[in-house]
């Protein structure tokens, strides 16, 4: 009787540990989203101070990554999780790496925004970049929502959105080349714009990675590097399997 009680107690504590670390991943996600938000705001409003502030605040993201990482190692070492719990911990370890990279890219955008704020602004006020940023922000938001809800359908939507973001990046890049050929004086600005677009595109990739971990976590299938079609098939199959389970 006592042994059983103890076992129950340990597993409850274990559940709490897992839940806590999952929650802290999502609050790290919230921080990263805010960083990205502010970096994009600095860009669109030409606020160099805000841009530099974003770059400075990246330490907060880094600090959270380290602490969640430690917590995960502790869980692995002391609880030796298996099956779904193990997948959760592995997915968390991978997710925070991508979140931290998103934070780094946001830092980069902040610095670039601060630099772009000091030069003449194009008449469109970086409309293409703002569009791209909006899509990327939606992707990050969708990825974190999918993580919170363990929603593989939502994750799949984000994965699908990535190719549109890649195309947008491509067109900004081409546009940049055209402009610099027309007027070489804009080279510096165009390079900075391209770097910004590149950073945004990378953020989209990281969001996509997070979604792949969500699918791994829920269905136990590694869906990296297999193409959108195959991922879709895996998600469908996995969902059916989950639904047929009594």
């Amino acid at each position: 009787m006592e042994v059983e009680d103890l076992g129950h107690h340990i597993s409850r504590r274990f559940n709490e540990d897992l839940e806590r670390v999952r929650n802290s991943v999502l609050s790290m996600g919230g921080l990263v989203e805010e960083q990205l938000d502010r970096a994009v705001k600095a860009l669109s409003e030409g606020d160099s101070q805000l841009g530099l502030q974003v770059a400075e605040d990246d330490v907060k993201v880094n600090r959270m990554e380290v602490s969640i990482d430690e917590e995960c190692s502790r869980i692995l070492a002391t609880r030796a999780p298996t099956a779904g719990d193990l997948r959760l911990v592995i997915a968390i370890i991978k997710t925070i790496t991508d979140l931290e990279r998103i934070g780094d890219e946001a830092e980069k955008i902040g610095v670039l925004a601060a630099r772009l704020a000091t030069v003449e602004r194009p008449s469109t006020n970086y409309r293409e970049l703002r569009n791209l940023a909006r899509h990327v922000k939606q992707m990050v938001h969708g990825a974190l929502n999918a993580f919170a809800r363990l929603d593989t359908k939502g994750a799949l939507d984000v994965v699908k959105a990535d190719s549109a973001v890649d195309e947008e990046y491509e067109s900004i890049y081409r546009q940049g080349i055209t402009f610099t050929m027309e007027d070489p004086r804009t080279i510096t600005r165009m390079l900075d714009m391209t770097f910004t677009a590149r950073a945004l595109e990378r953020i989209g990739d990281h969001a996509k990675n997070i979604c792949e971990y969500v699918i791994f976590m829920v269905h136990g299938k590694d869906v990296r590097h297999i193409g959108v079609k195959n991922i879709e098939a895996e998600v469908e199959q996995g969902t059916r399997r989950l639904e047929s389970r009594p």
Partner: protein
Amino acid sequence: MTLPSRWASQIAALAGLLATALILGWWFGGPGWWLAGAALLYLVYTLRHLYWLDRALDGHRRVPLFETRGLWAEAFARVDKLRAKARNRKKKYHRLLREVRESTGALADGGIILNADNEIMWFNPAAARLLGLNHATDIGHRIDNLLRHPDFAAYLKAPSGDGITVASPRNDAGWLHVQIIPYGTDQRLAIIRDVTNEKNVERTRRDFVANASHELRSPLTVISGYLEALQDAGDVPEAWQVPVAEMQRQAERMTRILRDLIELTRLETADASAARDFIDVGGMLKPIVQEFRGRLGPTVELALETDAALLGKESELHSIFYNLVNNAVRFTPPAGTVRVVWRAADGGAVFEVIDSGIGIPEEQIPRVTERFYRVDPGRSRASGGTGLGLAIVKHALQRHEGELSIASREGEGSTFSCRFPRDRVVFRSDAVSAVL
């Protein structure tokens, strides 16, 4: 103990049956068999009714009954009555529930019920619309996992005041106001309101004030410039010398008002929290006090009771100190005194200006930090204030998480205290341990 009549009749019927069987048995012979037969008959009769009672309790309605009175008829009637009552009650609750659901659904504000772990227990359609929640998947999830803004997470941990305004997770330009109200044992209700319009109006107002002040400044510079040139030229006719001097004074005052307005809008629009530069408060207060000592007016005393320093923004802290001392000096007669105190208190530190001036009527104290609010319009304008000093103090202090409290008694003087939280204060002993 008296039995209900239905039982009496039932027992009488049974007794009658047994008695009849006994008489018949005595008449025809074999009374035991007759008795057993009668008892069996009664058992069948009872079982049959039990069977139908069972069916009736299961919800079967048509019960074939032989009699219209007696124990069984009454029992079935009571079952029917109970069932009808239950049905009515259910209908009533159903209707009530539907009304509640419809009315909460019609609310424009979102409502979410949270349990002690901040998990979503229930939400109305408006909340679903504002936050993008989904009934099928989101019940039981923690709200801070879905609404991840760091400010909201901090507010959720320690809900205080009138809620918090965060960017909408669904709409790029949208703003939501969230307030959390605890109720019951450990449940909480989050009320969510779309404040995008209010935010926009507020912003338009602020932009207007900022732009207007900027636009007014350049023509004013030209006017002041020419007025000065006119006075310097020295050939102003006698009759115009006083008016020109007055014009120059008023132009100067207008410049001051515009400068304060611009400062105020800057404080309002700036980020929520001020920078954390190391500021030596004593070093900042001495020149300010010195400046006021040089003028005609009340005696100004400085008491530095602690060597604590502040983490804040230099220009804003200077604004706070200067405006409060300036205010006190202006409203204190030359014979009075103004005491400026910097002391440690409750972990944090307090900056205090105590004057023996004219004081503020009690009912007006809450209003003095409003912009352009004047206790005594004639007097304060004559003393050269802009009417914005205390508003600036309040906003600058808010950006340092500080608190302004005002105590005053009419005719005896006022005390303005700025309390800075522990987090912003560095005691020299702290500094030493930090180095070690």
